[in-house]
Each structure stands twice: as structure tokens, then as C-alpha cells.
């Protein structure tokens, strides 16, 4: 089964969907070090794509290029039909359309949970405060911590903080959610509560791109798994293909180490 076959298999289910994220030949340099070497991939609307690979393979770099936390130097990135260029207006649009969840949560420690969530809706989306707060409470309910609204991030557990971070991103009503190793900084017992929220999200039909080493999660909800190494996408396939008979040796090696 080749890469193309796997893509076709995934595309069967999502065949009639529009493209959400399109990357063509994306290059990224840090000084003289090339972190991304011609990354090409397409993610459909509503798809859940899991990116995995060894440390330093460029997963974070890629995902951060997609909402322009890093600037790519070669190739094109198009998100929901908006091309990522130097255009200020496009950057603004992308940022409010793409949510991102970080490994270190990056909540704002000086704001309450509620203020963390309502900040962007009020000041970027220009929503009335009452409406924003109502939505924030609903989101907190959805991620399972409705009672923590008035607390400060420092008073929450890691898992709770990460769920607040998810709610904060969702509050912008994004079309795409990016997750960069959302569970890596968590204690094992907290990982599950975050993954549960993510699974629920995945089922709700939002487009998701997830960098993670949680293979159980990948197997359960991913539409496709992409394996990266050395700044390149080495192998792409459905979970079934990926876990049962990967074609590339490097993938096999990686899987044998991680599973």
C-alpha cells in the first residue's frame, strides 16, 4: 500500500469535503538549518490529522507555520482559501480562524479563567461582554470544569489548565484547531481528561491537526496519521495502515520504539 493509496482511502470518507489546509513544498530555515524540507500535505474540512515523529523532526515547526507563529520561506500554505503571505489582513484572518493549543498551556496567569477565555472574543471578535461570558461558561461546561471560572490559572491542575486553554481557543469559534503535544506536560492521570475533551471535539466535526505521541488517541480518532522525520513527511496513512503494515523502515523503527 503506497502513500497515494492510503491517501485515497482516507479521502473516501472525506472525498466530498473541501480542502481546509493545503501545504505545498513548504520550506523553513533557522539560519542555515533547514527544519522543513518541501512539506506537502492537504487536510480536508472536518478531518482529524495526527502528526507524529521523533524529536526534532519538525512537527512543531510545521504546525506553527500554519498560523504563522513561524514564517515559512518557501512554498505555499493556504488555510480555508486564505493564502499565508505578508498580507497583514490575511494574517489577522488566519489567526482568528485557527485555534492553537500549546504543550505548556500558555494561559495568562494574571487573568481569571473567565477573562482568559473572553479576552479575544471581546477584543478581536468585538462581541458584547455578556454574550462572550455566556459562551465562555458554556465552553467551560463542555470541557468539564464549569466551577473554575473565577479562579486564576495558577490555582488549577495541569489538566484543568490545558482544558481552559482548549476552551480559550474554541471561544474564537475557529474552523481549525492545532494541537502541539497537548498532553506532554501532564501527569498520566490528567492526560485522559484532556484526551477525552479532544475526542469529543473530534467527533463534533471540527478540523483538527494534532501533534502527539498518544498512539491510542491516534488509533481511535485519527482520520490520517502523518509520520515526519528530518523535516519531511515520510509516510501518510489511515491508522489501520499505519499501525498494521507501515511501508517505510523509518516508520517501523519509530513505532517499535514508541509502542
Amino acid at each position, binding site marked *: 500500500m503506497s*502513500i*497515494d493509496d492510503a*491517501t485515497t482511502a482516507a479521502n473516501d470518507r472525506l472525498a466530498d469535503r473541501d*480542502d481546509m489546509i*493545503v501545504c*505545498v513544498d513548504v*520550506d523553513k*530555515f533557522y*539560519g*542555515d*538549518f*533547514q527544519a522543513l524540507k518541501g512539506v*506537502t500535505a*492537504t487536510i480536508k474540512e472536518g478531518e482529524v490529522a495526527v502528526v507524529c515523529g521523533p524529536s526534532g523532526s519538525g512537527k512543531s515547526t510545521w504546525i506553527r507555520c500554519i498560523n504563522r507563529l513561524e*514564517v515559512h*520561506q*518557501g512554498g*505555499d500554505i*493556504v488555510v480555508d482559501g486564505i*493564502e499565508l*503571505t*505578508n*498580507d*497583514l*489582513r*490575511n*494574517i489577522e484572518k488566519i489567526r482568528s480562524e485557527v485555534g492553537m493549543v500549546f504543550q505548556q498551556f500558555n494561559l495568562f496567569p494574571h487573568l481569571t479563567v473567565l477573562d482568559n477565555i473572553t479576552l479575544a472574543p471581546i477584543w478581536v471578535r468585538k462581541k458584547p461582554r455578556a454574550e462572550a461570558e455566556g459562551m465562555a461558561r458554556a465552553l467551560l461546561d463542555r470541557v468539564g470544569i464549569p466551577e473554575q471560572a473565577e479562579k486564576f490559572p495558577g490555582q488549577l491542575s495541569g489538566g484543568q489548565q490545558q482544558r481552559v486553554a482548549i476552551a480559550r481557543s474554541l471561544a474564537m469559534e475557529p474552523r481549525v484547531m492545532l494541537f502541539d503535544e497537548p498532553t506532554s506536560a501532564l501527569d498520566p492521570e490528567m492526560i485522559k481528561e484532556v484526551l477525552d475533551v479532544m475526542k469529543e471535539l473530534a467527533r463534533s466535526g471540527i478540523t483538527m491537526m494534532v501533534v502527539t505521541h498518544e498512539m491510542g488517541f491516534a488509533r481511535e480518532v485519527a482520520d490520517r496519521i502523518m509520520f515526519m522525520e528530518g523535516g519531511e513527511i515520510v509516510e501518510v496513512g489511515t491508522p489501520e495502515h499505519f499501525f498494521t503494515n507501515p511501508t517505510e523502515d523509518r516508520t517501523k523503527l519509530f513505532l517499535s520504539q514508541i509502542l
Partner: protein
Amino acid sequence: MASTAPASTHHERPPLYRDVTVVKWVVQIIALLLTLGALWFLANQAGDNLKASNVPTDYDFLSVNPGIDLSSGIDTDPDTGGRALWVGMVNTLRMAIAGILVATVIGVLIGLSRLSNNWLLKKLGTVFVETLRNVPLLVQILFYGAVFASLDRVSLDVGPVNGWFHVSNKGLSMPRVHIADGFYQWMIVIGIGLFAANLLRKRRIAQQDLSGEETYPILSAFGLVVIFGALGWFIHPIFGFVGNIFDGLSSVVSAVPEGALQILVALLSVGTSVYWIRGFLNSRRTPAGLAKLTDDDYFRMIFAGVGGVLGAVFFLVLWPGLSSWMINSGSDLFEVLGNKFGNGRSGRPVDVALPDIVQVGKFPNYGPSGLNFSIGFAAVFFGVVFYTSAFIAEIVRGGILAVPKGQTEAAAALGLRRSTALRRVIIPQAARVMLPPLGNQYLNLTKNTSLAIAVGYSDIVQVGQTVYNQTGKTLPVVSIWMFFYLSCSLSISVIVNFFNVRMRIVER
């Protein structure tokens, strides 16, 4: 896969006002131009106003007799404005260096006493620090000044050690050690001695590492320097030929054609920018060829290029006097050096003069032969020393507290003796924390000596003020102040940085 790739592979540039890079650089360049414009405008305005009020801003006063007397310094009756300012600078530096040394000693002692487990010492240290750092320095200086001014009048037999040491309302007088005829040649001998001593030290250390025997590298190096010093005391006149070399250099420099130097400077400006751009491009080169340059990178390079060319134009067209100035001052410098090292100087390198009290008119006063500290000096000195030492004490305390307790315990667990642990473990780490703020305090002390103006001690600010009151040339004087203090700041931060780097090596 290829089927899903978007058709658009060409990049459409967004309109300029929405392009991130363009906006970013345009904003910066506008800010730069506005700043330069404002400065240019103000300078112009000042120039016009000065011209209108008939006070030209030139530096002629530096070579004209200012007709002022200074209260203290190496030359209390300077014959040019430049000389007067020079005396002021020396006074400032003298105060700053002495102040830094004494303040450090007192500050370290007080800081340690605040850490001691003796309750009384701790409290006394706290009272010292809190009192001194919460009262403005100027208030302290004025207070000391007022107290000293109420001391006994100076008289022919004022003590405490008549003929050697005098204290009175005119200040302090004590024996003076001063540079004499053969000093510079002697310094050459000592320089050679230092060089040799360094070689000896390294060899001794190598020996010690090989054999394991104690070879006293520092001690023997020090001994060698002393031997050279003693020897040089007698043989220094043979180095008089150095003066001839400097004389020769002086005439060589004055023979350099002006035009060539001008072009050289301009080329240097262009060359620097070319060099920078090449270095920049090299830093962007990858094994796989040149990395893709961002728009920012292009802007940077354009900026460097334009800067270099502008510099060249500036030197060639707008400032043609530069090269003749460089040549003149260079040859003057070598001429002065030639004099100092001149052949035929054979006296003692260093001499001592005892203080005396003379009565010229109605009132007795200290004569010029001793080392005299006016009450102005004493007031400023005590002021800056105590004030700064309070801050140094806090830095020392903070630095030592910043070393985790585990370090002391670990050192003890390794069986290091307490003194070794202090020297090898605690102090290197504390010093790393302490050095930057300490450097800041030294800088503050140097700047604070300018308060001397309040008690009439002739530091650079006070002398400068007297000079511009006489000549009306405020702007040039202020520019000299700025230049002087900025050089002091720069030297202190260079020194502190040097030690900081060394500390890091020690730590490793």
C-alpha cells in the same frame, strides 16, 4: 497528492500598506528620520540662537587662558581652558578611584556583618545601611561639608603630626608621592619585568603540574617584578632611545598626505559595510547553497549598504577637516610621548614631598608641596564612600544569600575545608550574581562625584561650570562632560564584563 495541490503557485504581493515587512520597515525608517530630523532641527536652532547672541560654539577656549583658580588638583592655576578641564578630570578620576576602593572595602565588611550570626553586628549593619541609603547623597555631602567647615582654623602648628599630617578647616595635608624625571623609562623596565614574570609564572605552573611539587608561581613572579623594579631604578636612563623612536613616529605621521587619509577613511566606511554584508550572507549560507533570504534580510543589507556609502560621502564631502585633525593630533601625541621618554632624563623615577604650611598674606594656608585634600574633597569623598558602601553592602548580602545552601553542604560533604569551599564554591557563584550590580554602583559613584559642585571641589563639572561662566561656551563644555562620563561608563562596563567572563570560566 498532486491533484490536491492548489493551482496558484505564483505569489501575489499584497498592497504595500498591508505588507508586513514593508510596514515594519517603513515605520522604522520614518521613526529614524523623525528622530534625526528633530535633532538636526534642534541643533540648527541652537546654532542660530547662539550666533544671534554672539556666542560661537567653538573649542577655542581650550587653548586660551581662562583666568581661573581651582580649589584643588594637580595644577591650581591652569594656563589654558583645556588644562583646567584636564585638572578637573584628574580630580574626578582621583575621587572615583579612591572612592571605589574604600567603598568596596567598607561595603563588603558591612554586608558580611549583616550576615553574621552576631545579633549586635547584624543590627548595627542594618542601621548603617538603612540610614545612609535613605538620605540623599547631596544632603550627606552638604552636611559633612558644614561639619568640616567648623573644624579648627589652620595655623602654623596645626596637628595632629606637625610637618607630616595636618587637619583643619582648610582640609587635610599629608606627604605626597609624585612622578619625577625618570618615571616613564622606569615604567618600560617594569613592563618588561611584568612580561618576564608572566612567562615565569606559566613555566612554574607547568612545572608544578608535572612534578606535583609546590613551586610558588605567583610569589616568584612577584619577586621577579620587584627585582626588575629595583634594577630599573638605576638603569632606566638607557631606555631614553624610546623617546627618539616616538619623535620619529611623530614626523612620519605628519608626513602622511591628507587626501590619501581622507580617501582611506571613506574607503574604510564603505569597506565596513561591504564586510558586514558579506558576513551576513555567509551566515545565511547552508550546505545546500544560499538559504532563502527574507524581506527583512534584504532590508538589512540595503540599510548597511546605504549607511556605508553615506558614511563615505560624509567623510569625503561634509567633514574634510577630519584627516588633518587626525594627522595633527596623531603627530602631537607622539611628540608628547617623545618628550616624556626623552633621552637624557636621568633623575629618580618617583619622589616624595612633605607638606608644609605657608603664610603668604594675612592667613596661613597649606603650601603646594604636600598632598592636600580640601574640605570639599573630604565632604564628597566621605559622602560617596558611605553612600555607595551602603548599596554595596546590600549587593554583597544579596549575592551571598543567592548561593543555595545546598552548595555549602555539598562542599562540606566532599570534605573541602571551609576556606577552600568559600574560595572555590561560594565566592565564584556569589561573585557572578554580584558583579553586574557592583559595576553599576561603581558607575553611580563615578557619576555622583559630580555633586562636588555643591561644595566647591574642583571636579570636571565644577571646573566646567566655572569655565562656561567665564567664556559663555556652555555647549562645548557640556559636550566634553558627556564625552568624559560616557568614556568612564564604557571603561567600567568593559572592566566589569572582563571579570564577568573570567568568573564564568572560573566556574566551569
